[in-house]
């Protein structure tokens, strides 16, 4: 597997989230992802970026287009923040759990909207979430 395209962006305000959604959509459209795939990934991107902004105090995202040897294409997003981290990941993933004013669906929803979902977080060390959607 190789990374055929990659770029990084900061997540410091809501405009950055709007830009990321557009970036993800454009990239996936160019790679030939279906409208459903695009919409799912754009929505997951929106959720994870907003979490990084709201709970992580801002962060960064790495966008990667992946090519597997068998020709399969994927889009990977790696979100990183240096906020308080998540103490209980299972609890955070539970639908309806929120420490803010949200619906508590963003994290669990993103997991269901993507093919691969990985959380790396510990209190005080920040949070890194990697999601991938394959064509």
């Amino acid at each position, binding site marked *: 597997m190789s990374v055929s395209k990659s770029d990084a962006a900061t997540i410091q305000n*809501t405009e950055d989230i709007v830009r990321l959604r557009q970036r993800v959509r454009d990239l996936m459209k160019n790679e030939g992802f279906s409208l459903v795939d695009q919409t799912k990934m*754009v*929505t997951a991107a929106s959720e994870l970026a907003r979490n990084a902004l709201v709970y992580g105090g801002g962060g960064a995202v790495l966008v990667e287009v992946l090519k597997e040897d068998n020709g399969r294409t994927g889009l990977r997003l790696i979100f990183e923040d240096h906020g308080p981290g998540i103490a209980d990941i299972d609890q955070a993933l539970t639908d309806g759990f929120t420490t803010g004013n949200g619906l508590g669906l963003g994290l669990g*929803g993103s997991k*269901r909207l993507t093919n691969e979902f990985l959380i790396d977080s510990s209190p005080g060390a920040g949070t890194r979430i990697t999601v991938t959607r394959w064509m």
Partner: protein
Amino acid sequence: MIKINKKISEILTQHKNEIFEDWLSGQLASVSLRLDLVSETELRRQSQEFLNLFVTASLSSNLQDINTPEWDGVREYLTSITYSRARQGFSPTEIATFVLSLKHPLFSHLRELSGVNSNDLIDMIWTATFLIDKLALLSIENYQRGREEIIKRQQQELLELSTPVVKAWDGVLILPLIGTLDSARTQIVMESLLQSILDTGSAIAIIDITGVISVDTLVAQHLLKTMAAAKLMGAQCIISGIRPQIAQTMVHLGVGFGEVATKASLADALAESFKRLGLAVIKPQARG
């Protein structure tokens, strides 16, 4: 320093006309010339005006700090040119070149001075360079500010453009949502819908999301809150135009619209509203 400053302003005053002509022909020959955006007459006028102010300010024998009152005129004029150029679509390089290209004609005249030792000449060039660079940086900053203002204004216009609450029928409002909904816009749109419900006393509000690209938890939350508020005001909401990819995404995300009626198309939603209001659409009888 005073000696150096004096010398520079003397040269500027004495050779103003030659410096002006050299500067102008330099600008006209430059690759960053934009005659498509600014005419030669206009460029001549702007350059003349700027140089006049520049020479006058230099007489103050302060060439070190452009933030002093002596330089007010120069700063203001430069700002006004930069703003108008930013609006016209000049690039930052083209903007900075206007001031920076003054260096060459000025330095040529400094070199032609007789009876100046090389130390003084270097000091003079250093002083002039520093001064002109500061003005160039100022114009870049202003350019940036000008562009940001344009973007802000456009965003504002867009906000206003995209919040059209339409009255479809007596008692029926339609809010067509379009594009990516960031939280600022969604908030405004929703508020304008509630206000219209109040103003018109409408019983039914149709929120059409055919043009929406994605519905995430924040957008869903805004919609849910608006529908709850509308209900308190005595109005019912109908959501129409949930496209297949959005419906699928919402199911995975786990958000739903609860008991609120959803219709595939705006036409269906309108038909539903008529039904609820006890209205029927009837084809007039063909006349014989």
